[in-house]
């Protein structure tokens, strides 16, 4: 096994064995599952319990096939009122002419009751009205809110994972520099192997996290039934998110290693990384803005500019249909940027990692050989 893989393997085994990693992963999985079930629990009812007093049940099921209705009969208006107030039923139809509710009726249910009631009465009078044909001449907007929701969740996950793993890279670099292990390491492996192994190992851990989130998220969405609201193309989106995570992480991790190698103490990591954390935050904010306006000029333009593209393009892909060539072009630009940053980061790291002591200035490191 070569140096790069050995270094990567050490990063993975050391981290996986810590309590923090295992607990973190469990908490993430639980949170994701909770989020996936939440709309089911909190969101609008997809089932109504209705009561009748001296009335026929209305054929609501035919008008709203996705909703389930349960009917109960009450002997008189008094019993029905009590059931409404107790919350046992959502609404009660009295004498086929009046609806009792606790407060204002649910909009959807109200419209449904009115229109079905009208139809039944008209049908009884021999009038039948063919339902209106609905036809969209614009984009398919059925999934707009689902898409926006997915985009918001995705960009948050990408942001948190990239930020977390990037911090780990910087702290690992400083651990090795501060304790001078790096001196023994560099007498056996080349700097790029050491740096590459660290980035690779911690990136793999990030991917494990991401895959867990995706699997648990999609799994619970299917289990809870909200997956039926998902737009088509989810597998493609998942694949793209994995690629974007790898690219975004590689970009920021190379910079984190370069900045981290400038200091020798863990306490200084935070301050030396400030420009980088700012950059990650800005990327996140731009991407978050794009979730609101995924088809706008800003989102479109920025989705080509590394490193912003690493979060903005996934948002666009989730929120709208993006032509494949656009995704390809954006990825190509990002790959080039990643390669450039890796080369730059490795250079800084190589020059700075053995110069222990006071914090080094980036400019000095670049000037001196």
């Amino acid at each position, binding site marked *: 096994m070569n140096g790069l893989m*050995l270094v990567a393997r050490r990063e993975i085994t*050391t981290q996986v064995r810590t309590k923090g990693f295992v607990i973190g992963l469990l908490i993430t999985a639980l949170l994701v599952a909770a989020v996936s079930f939440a709309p089911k629990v909190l969101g609008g009812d997809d089932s109504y319990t209705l009561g009748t007093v001296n009335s026929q049940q209305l054929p609501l099921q035919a008008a709203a096939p996705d909703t389930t209705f349960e009917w109960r009969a009450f002997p008189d208006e008094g019993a029905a009122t009590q059931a409404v107030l107790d919350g046992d039923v959502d609404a009660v139809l009295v004498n086929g002419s009046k609806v009792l509710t606790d407060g204002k009726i649910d909009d959807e249910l109200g419209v449904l009751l009115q229109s079905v009631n009208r139809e039944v009465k008209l049908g009884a009078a021999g009038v039948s009205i063919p339902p209106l044909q609905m036809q969209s001449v614009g984009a398919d907007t059925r999934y707009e809110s689902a898409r926006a929701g997915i985009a918001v969740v995705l960009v948050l996950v990408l942001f948190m994972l990239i930020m977390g793993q990037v911090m780990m890279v910087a702290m690992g670099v400083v651990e090795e520099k501060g304790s*001078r*292990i790096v*001196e*023994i390491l560099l*007498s056996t492996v*080349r700097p790029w192997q050491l740096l590459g192994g660290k980035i690779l190992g911690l990136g793999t851990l990030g991917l494990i996290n991401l895959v867990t989130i995706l699997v648990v998220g999609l799994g619970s969405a299917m289990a809870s039934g909200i997956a039926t609201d998902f737009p088509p193309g989810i597998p493609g989106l998942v694949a793209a998110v994995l690629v974007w995570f790898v690219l975004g992480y590689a970009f920021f991790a190379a910079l984190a290693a370069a900045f981290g190698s400038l200091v020798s103490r863990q306490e200084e990591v935070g301050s030396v990384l400030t420009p980088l954390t700012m950059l990650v935050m800005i990327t996140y904010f731009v991407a978050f803005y794009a979730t609101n306006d995924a088809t706008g000029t800003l989102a479109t333009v920025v989705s080509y500019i590394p490193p912003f593209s690493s979060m903005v393009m996934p948002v666009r892909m989730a929120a709208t249909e993006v032509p494949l060539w656009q995704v390809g072009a954006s990825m190509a630009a990002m790959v080039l940027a990643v390669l450039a940053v890796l080369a730059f980061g490795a250079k800084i790291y190589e020059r700075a990692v053995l110069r*222990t002591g006071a914090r080094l200035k980036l400019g*000095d490191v670049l000037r001196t050989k």
Partner: protein
Amino acid sequence: MLEINELRKRFAGGPGAPAAKIALDGISFAVRPGEMFGFVGANGAGKTTTMRIVMGVLQADSGSVTLRGAPLSPDDRRRFGYMPEERGLYQKMRVAEQIEYFGRLHGMSATAVTKATDDLLEQLGLTERKNDAVQALSLGNQQRVQLAVALVHDPELLILDEPFSGLDPIAVDALATVLQERCRGGVPVIFSSHQLELVERLCDSVGIVSAGRMVAEGAVADLRAAERNELRVVVRNPAPGWADGLPGTVTVDGDRHTLRATGGDDQEILRRAVKAGRVEHFGAEQPSLTEIFKEAVA
């Protein structure tokens, strides 16, 4: 044979950094197979810089390091064992895992490294601590782990920067024994130290560095021979003026007269001393390494 030829290294100064400093000013020496080479010099003389350059951790501005006549390659260096001056271990990693990790980095197979680690832990008396995190060990034991990290891959050459610093006398002996064993097995050992008696006791050859240059180098005995050997004669209660006409100076302490002389006919001096009184001491004074060192760096 490891040869260090005319190494030069200058550290640039900069804003906020110390002024530019010449760390190595053309240092040269050679270490033969099975030789224990002691590297001595004042703080900042260039010992650590030299060792770092040999290990490839630093680049020299000019000069070369060759092994058996060929420039050192990264592969050569992977077969070296190195203990840097600043000790470094992963504090949270377990002892055995840490040693194995470095063994693997040196290119050992998984099975070979397990066996080598067990043997070393046994030899260094750390077997019971093998699954403890390094941070749970005493400093002395951490130093042993550090040594194990340098030895695990059965190195072809050992470079140890201040391996004895901070050790108690028993640990010093234990470490010295390990190094002598390796050395007898044909592995050249280069180590730096400020404990000159130790260097004198252990080393076949010594190199004295001052201001980035090798000011004296060779077997300890040769260095002594090169020094002017001083004759010291102690005579009890001699006749006054007994040493008139002899080279050297006489100091008087009560009835003890001590003559220190360099050069001159020692047999003639002895005859005169015997005639003058009771000779308590007659002999050439061997300078200690400390004296040679002080002389060399002065």
